[in-house]
C-alpha cells in the first residue's frame, strides 16, 4: 500500500457465519493479482492435547468429544479405536455394527444441518434458513426432519445427541434393545426418501464454474463407503497405514498465517471430506446412492467445491441406507463391550468425521495413563486447500462488487463445512488484525 500507483483492494469478512466456530478471512488484491489469502482462526485455543496428558485412557472418548459439539461421535470413535489399537484389541462385528449405526446418525444430523441450515441459504440468496423457511417452509421442514432422525439415532444408540454417554473404549455401556433399534426403521426410511429429494433439490442450484486440482485423502474400508475406520489413501495412489500417515503429515506453524497447517510430506496441501471420499470411494457407494448420483449426473471425481453440497446429499443417502440396513439386521451383541487391558504402547486410528478425516494418536503407559496425545482434525488438514480455493474464487470473481465477492468467498469457506471449534484446539489466533 506504500506504492501509490498500485490499486489495492481488500476483501475481508470478520466473523464468518454459518460455520461451526469462529473464524475470519482476509484476501489482498494488488493490481488485479491476488497477493494474499488468509483464513484466520480466532477461536481461542483450549489445549486438549495438553490436558489429556495424565488422564486415564478410558476418559479420552468423553474428553475429546468436547472438542466439537457438532461431531462428538467422530471424536469418540477415533479415540476408542486408537486406544484399542494401543492395547491390541479388535471389537467384534456386533459392536462394530452398532458403532457404525451411531456414526451414521451423526452423519445424517451433521449433513442435514450443513446442507439445510448452513449451506443452501447461500445458493438461494438468503441470510439464513429462517429466511429460507419464510419462502419455502416445506423444504426447510424436510431438512429439519432428517436432522431430527439423525439425532434420534444418536440418542437411541448413544444416549444423547450432543456428547453421547453410552460410548466406551471396547464398546458400549449398554446395548440398546431390539425394539428401540427397530423403531428407528420408520423414521430412517422417511429420511432416506428425504435424502433422495435433497439430492434432486440441491443439484438444481446454480454453481459457479470453478474447479480445483485437489490432492484428496480419504479412508479406504474394503467393500464399503468408509465412515468408521480404514486406512488412508490418496488420489495419486499412495496407500498408508494410519500410523504411517500420521508420520507423513507435517503440521507446520507458519509465521504469516499464524496457524498450524497440515501438508503431506511438508509440501503438498490436501483435502479430506465429502469431495475426497466421493473421489476415492465412489466404487463402494451403495446401489441406491449410485443411482441417485447418476440421476443428477454427478460424476466422480467432483472437483467443483461448490458442488460439495450435492456430494453431501449423496452421502446423506449413503448414511440413511446404511443405517437402515444396520437397523434391520440388528442383534444385540452378547456383551456390550470387550475388556481392554492397558499396556505401554502407541495407538493410532482415523475415522471419517462428516467434514473429513479425523486422526487420533496416543502414547499410554501400562497403567493406562495417557503420556502423549496428538489430534488432527479435518479442518486443519483442509485449511491450505480452502485458502487455495479462496485464491481461485477471487481471481475468477474480480469483476464482482466487494459485497458479492465477499459473500462468494464466505461461501467458498462454507463449501468445506469447516469446524473451527475442532481445528482451533491447536490453531493459532491471528496476530494480524485488519
Amino acid at each position, binding site marked *: 500500500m506504500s506504492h501509490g500507483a498500485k490499486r489495492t483492494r481488500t476483501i475481508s469478512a470478520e466473523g464468518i457465519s454459518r460455520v461451526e466456530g469462529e473464524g475470519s478471512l482476509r484476501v489482498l488484491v494488488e493490481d488485479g493479482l491476488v497477493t494474499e489469502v488468509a483464513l484466520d482462526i480466532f477461536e*481461542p485455543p483450549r*489445549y486438549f*492435547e*495438553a490436558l489429556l496428558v495424565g488422564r486415564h485412557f478410558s476418559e479420552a472418548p468423553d474428553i475429546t468429544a*468436547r472438542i466439537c459439539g457438532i461431531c462428538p461421535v467422530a471424536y469418540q470413535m477415533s479415540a476408542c479405536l486408537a486406544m484399542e489399537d494401543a492395547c491390541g484389541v479388535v471389537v467384534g462385528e456386533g459392536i462394530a455394527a452398532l458403532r457404525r449405526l451411531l456414526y451414521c446418525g451423526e452423519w445424517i444430523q451433521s449433513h442435514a444441518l450443513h446442507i439445510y441450515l448452513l449451506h443452501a441459504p447461500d445458493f438461494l440468496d438468503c441470510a439464513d434458513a429462517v429466511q429460507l423457511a419464510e419462502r419455502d417452509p416445506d423444504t426447510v421442514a424436510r431438512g429439519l426432519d432428517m436432522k*431430527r432422525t439423525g439425532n434420534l439415532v444418536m440418542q437411541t444408540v448413544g444416549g444423547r445427541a*450432543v456428547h453421547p454417554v453410552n460410548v466406551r473404549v471396547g464398546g458400549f455401556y449398554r446395548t440398546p434393545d431390539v425394539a428401540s433399534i427397530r423403531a428407528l426403521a420408520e423414521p430412517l426410511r422417511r429420511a432416506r426418501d428425504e435424502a433422495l429429494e435433497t439430492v434432486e433439490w440441491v443439484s438444481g442450484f446454480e454453481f459457479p464454474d470453478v474447479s480445483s486440482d485437489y490432492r484428496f485423502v480419504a479412508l479406504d474400508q474394503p467393500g464399503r463407503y468408509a465412515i468408521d475406520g480404514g486406512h488412508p489413501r490418496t488420489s495419486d495412489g499412495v496407500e498408508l497405514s494410519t500410523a504411517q500417515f500420521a508420520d507423513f503429515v507435517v503440521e507446520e506453524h507458519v509465521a504469516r498465517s499464524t496457524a*498450524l497447517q497440515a501438508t503431506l510430506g511438508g509440501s503438498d496441501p490436501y483435502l479430506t471430506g465429502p469431495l475426497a471420499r466421493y473421489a476415492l470411494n465412489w466404487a463402494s457407494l451403495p446401489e441406491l446412492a449410485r443411482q441417485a448420483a447418476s440421476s443428477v449426473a454427478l460424476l466422480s471425481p467432483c472437483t467443483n467445491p461448490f458442488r460439495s453440497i450435492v456430494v453431501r446429499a449423496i452421502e446423506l443417502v449413503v448414511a440413511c441406507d446404511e443405517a437402515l440396513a444396520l437397523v434391520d439386521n440388528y442383534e444385540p451383541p452378547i456383551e456390550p463391550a470387550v475388556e481392554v487391558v492397558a499396556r505401554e504402547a502407541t495407538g493410532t486410528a482415523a475415522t471419517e468425521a462428516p467434514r473429513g478425516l479425523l486422526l487420533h494418536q496416543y502414547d499410554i503407559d501400562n497403567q493406562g495413563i495417557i503420556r502423549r496425545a496428538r489430534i488432527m482434525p479435518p479442518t486443519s488438514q483442509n485449511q491450505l486447500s480452502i485458502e487455495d480455493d479462496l485464491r481461485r474464487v477471487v481471481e475468477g470473481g474480480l469483476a464482482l462488487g466487494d459485497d458479492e465477492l465477499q459473500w462468494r468467498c*464466505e461461501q467458498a469457506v462454507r463449501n468445506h463445512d469447516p469446524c473451527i471449534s475442532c481445528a482451533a484446539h*491447536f490453531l493459532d489466533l491471528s496476530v494480524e488484525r485488519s
Partner: protein
Amino acid sequence: MSSSDVATERPTMAVWKFASCDGCQLSLLDCEDELLDLATAVRITHFTEMSRASSEGPYDISLVEGSITTSEDVKRIKAVRASSRYLVTIGACAATGGVQALRNFVAPGEFAGAVYAHPEYLDSLDRSTPISSHVVVDFELHGCPIDRGQLLEVLLAFLAGRRPVIASHSVCQECKARGTVCLMVAGATACLGPVTRAGCGALCPSIGRGCFGCFGPSASANCVALSTRLGELGTSDAAVARLFGTFNVAAPGFMEQSQALHGRVANPHVRRSTHEEARP
C-alpha cells in the same frame, strides 16, 4: 440501552460464543420442532453459527456459550453485557470455565507450551473463567451439554417475564424418579450422582454407568462426604480426582476434591519443555 425501542415488536435475541465446542448453541438448532416457531416469537438478530445477517444491539436476551480465555474476550463479554437486557449463560464452560479450566491448575503457560511452537503469538490467558467472573449474569443454565428442554423452558420464562423452573436438586433424585437401581449401593460403581445437578434425566446411571458430573454441583452438594465414600468403596484417589476434575473442574465443590486428591497423587501433567518433544 432501554428496551423500549423494541417493546413494540418481537423481542430480540442474540447468541454469542466464547471458548467452547458449539454443542450448547447446537442444542438450539437441535430444537427441530420449535426452531421456526421460536424464530417467529423472537427476532434472532445475532447468531453467527446460523445466520449471515447480524444487527447491532440492544438485545432483549443474550445467550452466551463458552468461557473467557483471552484478553479480547474479557472486553467482548463486557460489550455483550452492555447491549443485553438479560444475559443467560448456556453450558458448563460459561458457568464454570469448562474442561479448558484444567489449565488453571498447572503452571502458567504450561499447556500452551505443550501444544504450540510459539505460545508468545497467542492471546490466551492462564486461566479459563466463567462469565460470572466478568459480568452480572441473569441466569446460568448448566450442563455439558445443556438439555434442550431446559433451554426452551429458560427462553419461555424470560419471554414471559417469569423465573425459569429449573431444578437444583441432584441426579440421585432423577434416578429415584425413573426407578433406576442405585449403582453405588448395588454395585459399588463410582458415581457423582449424589452431588451433581439434575437436568440430564439421570442418563448415565440408566445405562449402568456412574454419573460423571456434566451438570456441575447441585445445590448444597456434600462433595467431601461423597469423596470419602468413593474411597471406601475402593475407587483410587487418582480416579476420584479425575472424576471431579473434568467438565466442571473449576466449580466450587468439585474443584476442592479434585485438587485435594491430586495432592496425594503424582502431578499427572507432565511438563513439556519443547514443542518437538510434545508433537514429534
